[in-house]
């Protein structure tokens, strides 16, 4: 291919991304490093503000627990899916993909119906006389956590099935024929071989969870903010544009750090 044609074909995309993604990013991030000259003052201020630190800690806590739970739910289930026959497998994959293609507002709304004051859980508990009055489940860290797990479990499942499909059934059968129990074969063979998939899935869930907006907005309310709801509030309700820029940069750094950590860990696995 001639070089001129090559540049002609990629130029529109490069230009559009440069003008409409990178330039605006630079524009919002530049002022966060300026305070009468170049300075990290705004970041020191962010990390010494108890209110912001609490939100940052809550974001990391919820994202970490959600990642862990998605792994615990996801690994056995993905293994189950990957060992089904063709028809059953594509059905179960469809069931896993469906929530992923369903709007996140709808998925958060589902949990409002379940956890709300007049929701399914309270209705059942009252009916069975286990409680005297409705308990508060919605607009708590707990509801945000459930919503986040619900949001990202399908992503974990699909990633894991993709990586477990590459494990030959012969390998586990060989282990079993040599006397390993199914559980032992799973722990010693399947789990180590699907570790790269677990890492990728975990990173997707974690980075998704620290940046998701809809779920904390609808299930957390104002008292249980996460970074994503904080950035929206700083920008749109309070017009604190540099403040929003600082949070944006913190989010980008966290995302990149999570991805780099995962790549580092995956590299280690490869060398073994």
């Amino acid at each position: 291919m001639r070089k001129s044609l090559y540049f002609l074909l990629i130029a529109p995309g490069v230009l559009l991304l440069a003008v409409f993604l990178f330039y605006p990013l630079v524009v919002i991030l530049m002022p966060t490093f300026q305070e009468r000259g170049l300075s990290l003052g705004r970041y020191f201020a962010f990390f010494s503000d108890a209110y912001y630190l609490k939100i940052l800690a809550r974001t990391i806590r919820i994202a970490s627990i959600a990642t862990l739970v998605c792994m615990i739910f996801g690994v056995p289930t993905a293994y189950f899916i990957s060992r089904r026959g063709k028809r059953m497998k594509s059905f179960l994959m469809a069931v896993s993909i469906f929530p992923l293609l369903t709007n996140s507002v709808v998925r958060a709304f589902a949990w409002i119906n379940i956890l709300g004051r007049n929701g399914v859980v309270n209705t059942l508990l009252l009916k069975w006389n286990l409680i005297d009055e409705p308990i508060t489940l919605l607009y708590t860290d707990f509801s945000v956590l459930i919503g986040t797990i619900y949001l990202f479990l399908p992503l974990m499942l699909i990633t894991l099935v993709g990586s477990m499909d590459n494990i030959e059934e012969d390998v586990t059968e060989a282990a079993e024929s040599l006397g390993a129990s199914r559980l032992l074969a799973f722990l010693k063979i399947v789990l180590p071989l699907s570790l790269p998939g677990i890492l990728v899935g975990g990173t997707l869930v974690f980075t998704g969870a620290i940046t998701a907006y809809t779920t904390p907005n609808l299930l957390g309310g104002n008292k249980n903010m996460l970074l994503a709801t904080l950035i929206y509030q700083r920008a749109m309700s309070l017009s604190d544009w540099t403040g929003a820029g600082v949070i944006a940069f913190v989010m980008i750094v966290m995302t990149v750090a999570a991805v780099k950590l995962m790549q580092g860990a995956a590299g280690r696995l490869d060398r073994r």
Partner: protein
Amino acid sequence: MGKRKQYGLAFFSILVFLFLAVPLFIIAATAFGEASTIRFPIKGFTLKWFAAIFASRSFMSSLRLSFALALYATALALLVGIPAAYALSKTQFRRNAFLRSFFLSPTFVPGIVVGYALFQFLVIKLRMPVFAGLLTGHFLVVLPYIIRVVGASLEQFDFSIEEVAWSLGCDKGQAFVKVVLPNIASGIVAAFMLAFINSFNNIPVSMFLTGPGVSTLPTTLMTYIEYSYDPSVSAISVLLMLTTIVLMFIVEKTLGIGTLAK
């Protein structure tokens, strides 16, 4: 004994699938309840909430907007993305790896940050009309899907077929349209589906760029839920889920459901 362990695994997996499915079933059921607030189990049976959304001007206009937006943004991304993906897989320059990740970069920046940056640039600075702003934002959101999925199907394509077309007298443009495009058609369709769905469902970019009276369906729904709580939201959810099922069915019959897992 080994068999019993399998039952344990099956039982656990069924619980996980119930966790995924039951909340959506509950929504679907509440769309048919007669009470004016959402109750489950429902009392009575009615279709009035479906009638209500079709009569609601804000829901219908935001539905139309979301549909048009997803269509235009995806078309634009295909127009920009297919040539770029073609150039990247046809050549072996060292910079190609960097360019590929450059094209995928919108996925590495959190959506809410993209939304905020575009709000500053397009809305505050350029004072762009609302639809143009949304189109720009959604174009950025969907471009990576096109590059990735079309790129993957170009990797499978045997470029010697294209050279045969040249030697048989096709010029480069003809060969591309008559030979390359038909061979990557299933990739293009899959990319289109993924891009369309992701644009249609997008919240974090849209919510910064919507203007007075101009709002996408998900942002309209989200604001609606923040203030009121009646089964019309369930009814909309049912319609959206039905559309998704139909789309998935078409994809399964033509390309295989696995293509949506990319």
